[in-house]
């Protein structure tokens, strides 16, 4: 998963070690996320975003984008059905 961690860190002049300590993970974890070897869990992504005071999508790129047509399909299929009583 693509992230802006390196840029966000550079803006604040933080090292990987400092960010790792702030988030409560190892330096290996920060390095692995920055080099796209591992994707963080939602919880870790939120934690990182909070540390940088940005939203998750400002820190991480949504690899699926926002697909309105898919969303419409889901909404159309999940419309409540009327059930006749009596």
């Amino acid at each position, binding site marked *: 998963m693509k992230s802006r961690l390196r840029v966000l860190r550079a803006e604040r002049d933080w090292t990987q070690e400092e960010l790792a300590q702030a988030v409560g993970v190892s330096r290996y974890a920060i390095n692995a996320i920055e080099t796209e070897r*591992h994707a963080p*869990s939602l919880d870790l992504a939120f934690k990182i975003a909070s540390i940088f005071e940005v939203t998750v999508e400002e820190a991480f790129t949504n690899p699926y984008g926002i697909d309105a047509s898919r969303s419409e399909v889901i909404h159309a299929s999940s419309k409540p059905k009327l059930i006749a009583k009596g």
Partner: protein
Amino acid sequence: MKLGWPNSWRYTLFSVGLWLVFLVALLTIEFALARDWPAHIRFGLACVPFITVVLQFRLSWATLMAQDEIVRGAHTERFFIAAATTLIVAIAYSTMPRAVGAPELPIWIVYPLFWGVLGVVATLRDRADS
């Protein structure tokens, strides 16, 4: 970046201790057989290696669970590859003594083999990551 095993003095200390007990128990079993020690003592000695293995994996599990999700995930992947490789080698060899007269090996050899394979897998993965 090298992953490395978590730096824990507790883990290192207990692991070295467990390995020593494991090896001493194996040697003592041979000694007990040569000296014809009573069966119940030999049975007790025979149980020691597997108890150390249980404790070692329990310790490894506790150490892994104390790590962050990414370190845990990376180690789990290495453990899986090492376990699969060890099983494949062990199963492949297991039919050889009967089929082609290869020397019989004790089953406990699988345990050090697993850790040896894990060391190789970890080194290769570290090289690939860096």
